[in-house]
């Protein structure tokens, strides 16, 4: 058991590191890596421009970069951000709690709203309610994140609610269809024919069967929320890691992007692994 846990943790950590390295490779070979807009300042002399280009060449030498990065990692040094002129560790440490708070509240509210739409939609079997809920989620899907963000700032509402509204349609769409499918299973039909109450049918027969997929959806919604955090933070001007990721992407900041990719991979893999384990153990328990 302990061995399996250690093996699992080691796999997660290695995956995170691999994710960071692959991300670094993607960045390094994308156009614009190795160019800095300061070169275009006409006040800079030829020597200064040459020094700047040499610095960029050194930074973008991948083997060199990996060597320095892993050596620094062992001492807790995550490198220095060129675009923001600050240690990457400091940037992530100050910004991660902002995103964590926004994502947590956004997911909590998003799941609550989604379930408040899904549960009546599947229990009431009313096409009118389904149409209404579907129309609402279609609207939320169609409204650009920039409009949502501006609306929330205008209303002085917390931006985490904008994030919630971005994830609601996706949670609603998948979970409604999964639960509707479960309603079609023979044992559910039998239970309803035998006169079991709708609440009991839902809680005892539909929900357990849908659980593995719902758990997978919980895990995926975290990834979706982190992805949604990037435009919401950029548009609402929240100093979180989403905004940091966007700035780093535009500036081709290799150090920041490697660290952020590693962090996102770590979170994604950990949550997905946990949901898989839980799903499997629930299934085995039910069996």
């Amino acid at each position, binding site marked *: 058991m302990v061995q399996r846990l250690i093996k699992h943790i080691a796999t997660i950590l290695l995956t995170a590191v691999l994710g960071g390295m692959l991300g670094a490779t993607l960045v390094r070979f994308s*156009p*614009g*890596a*190795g*160019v800095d*807009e*300061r*070169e*275009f*300042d*006409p*006040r*800079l*002399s*030829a*020597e*200064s*421009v040459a*020094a*700047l280009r040499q610095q960029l060449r050194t930074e973008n030498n991948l083997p060199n970069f990996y060597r320095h990065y892993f050596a620094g990692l062992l001492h807790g040094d995550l490198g220095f951000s060129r675009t*923001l*002129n*600050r240690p990457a560790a400091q*940037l992530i440490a*100050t*910004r991660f709690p902002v995103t964590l708070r926004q994502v947590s509240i956004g997911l909590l509210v998003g799941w609550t709203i989604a379930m408040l739409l899904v549960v009546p939609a599947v229990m009431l079997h009313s096409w009118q309610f389904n149409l209404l809920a579907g129309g609402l989620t279609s609207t939320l899907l169609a409204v650009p994140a920039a409009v949502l963000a*501006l609306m929330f*700032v*205008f209303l002085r509402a917390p931006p985490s609610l904008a994030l919630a509204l971005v994830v609601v349609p996706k949670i609603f769409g998948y979970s409604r269809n999964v639960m509707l499918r479960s309603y079609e299973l023979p044992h559910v039909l039998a239970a309803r024919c035998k006169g079991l109450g709708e609440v009991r049918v839902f809680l005892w027969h539909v929900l357990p069967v849908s659980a593995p997929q719902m758990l997978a959806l919980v895990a995926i919604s975290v990834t979706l929320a982190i992805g949604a955090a990037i435009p919401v933070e*950029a*548009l*609402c*001007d929240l*100093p979180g890691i989403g*905004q940091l990721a966007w*700035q780093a992407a*535009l*500036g*081709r900041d290799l150090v920041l992007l490697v660290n952020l990719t590693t962090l996102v991979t770590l979170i994604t893999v950990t949550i997905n692994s946990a949901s898989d384990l839980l799903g499997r153990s629930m299934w085995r328990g039910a069996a």
Partner: protein
Amino acid sequence: MKKSILHALVLCGLLFASCTAWSQYGGELRFCVRAEPKTFDPLLVDDDPSDTVRYLTAGVLVRTNRVTQQLEPQLALSWKVSENGQRITFKLRRDLYFSDGSPFSATDVAYTVRRLMDPNLHSSTADPFRSGPGDVDVRILASDRVAIRFPAPVAGLDRLFDQVPIMSSTSPKKEMAVLGPFNIADYKPGEYVLLKRNPNYWKHDAAGRRLPYLDSVRIEVEQNRDLEMLHFVRGEVDLINSLDPEYFSRLSSQAESTAHDAGVSLDPEMMWLNQVPTAPIPAYKKAWFASTMFRQALSKAINREDMARIVFRGHAHPAFGPISPANTFWFNSKLKAQAYDPQSAIRELAQDGFKLQDGTLKDRGGNAVEFSVITNAGNKYRAAMAAMMQQDLAKIGIRLNIVTLDFPSLMERISRTFDYEACLLGLVNTELDPNVQMNVWLSSAADHQWNPQQKNPATAWESEIDRLIRAQASTSDVRKRKQYFDRVQEIVREQNPFIYLLNKDALSGIASTVRNAQPSVLRPQTYWNIDELYLQSHADVARSR
């Protein structure tokens, strides 16, 4: 009795005046910058937000008045440029102190200049002073006199000191000890910088009261222009620099007194064709782009008036050349803006061997004239300009493809791979003296965008520009420099290496509670006289209407 009433009235008047005057003191001015400041070391500043903080906190020897464009004394009482622009001597004000109480003297000026001219320091503040190889000689002649001698003449030497922040040589607070009107009190990364009044600021107003009037300045980090506008309309910020034309129109309709158009700015929007011989583009296209007539024809075929009217809502003007009319001294007033004349463009192209066949322009070899123009994505005004150019050129049979790229990709194409055909970009001019554009006009320079880093000038006209640029840089006679640069402007107008399109207006938003603001076309547009700005309450503003 009458005397006592009179005395009472005078007393009341004095009391009222003093209350009104004192009411100028206090308050916090708020505005936004569009990114986080990268550094508070004033010698390493190379981004706008850091430059904003530097402008508000650093003391300088001289300052260009952003409205009159004249150089005015600051920490220096007077100065003298000699030896053909190689030497400058400053006489300094006495009994001044840094914000932490340490005294200011010539030693601090010498220390600053020596740090600035450190060969390992690569900064846009230092590089304009590097006119030639060799060391800079700094001599302290007295506690209030210092002489600086450069290895070679520096064009516009005195004006360059507008950007040089004087640092303390003795203070333990290093760059945090300042001579400007404010000093940094608080900083929250990604959120704001808070500046508080420098209690030792040297300047006084006409009545002898110590400046600045404001208690503090709060600089919010706000990347989103929509949100900045929202904050302004709500009264949460007091100033907006570089306001977009769309928001200007909106502000004008809501509260006309808050929207300010200071007139045409220094900044041009321009397009250039790729003339790099080794560029990976077809040879027949290189031949088009190398042809002066082709470039002139393109310039004539673009309707700049429509662009200014539609894209910038009337807040832009057809450009004349590299120098905007806002630069009153250096602008060549003999130049005229290029008029829209598609018929003349067609005639000129015909002379160059092009033929219009079934609405498509073809060259001598039968190739249809089609090329792409790249510009930076996310700038809707440039995208709109490109769309208008596309329509204009279609009328003379040229097919223009618009490609928007993210800025790093665009930079890579125009400076490394040269894999592009035409580029539409703008220039931000922060200095009046055209000598700072030397790295654009010299054919050997990296910023000579259409064909950078030439070993030898590729054309006779580029050779002539090289000669003129070097000549103006090697003399301190302003009249001669003007003659040389006037000729540069004429050559650029004839040859169109850059097809200058528009000069945008300097638009800004200033809340009605802000007093003494004099928006200027030079940066920083709205707060260049920050020490004289003060805030009036909304009630006082309403009463005064």
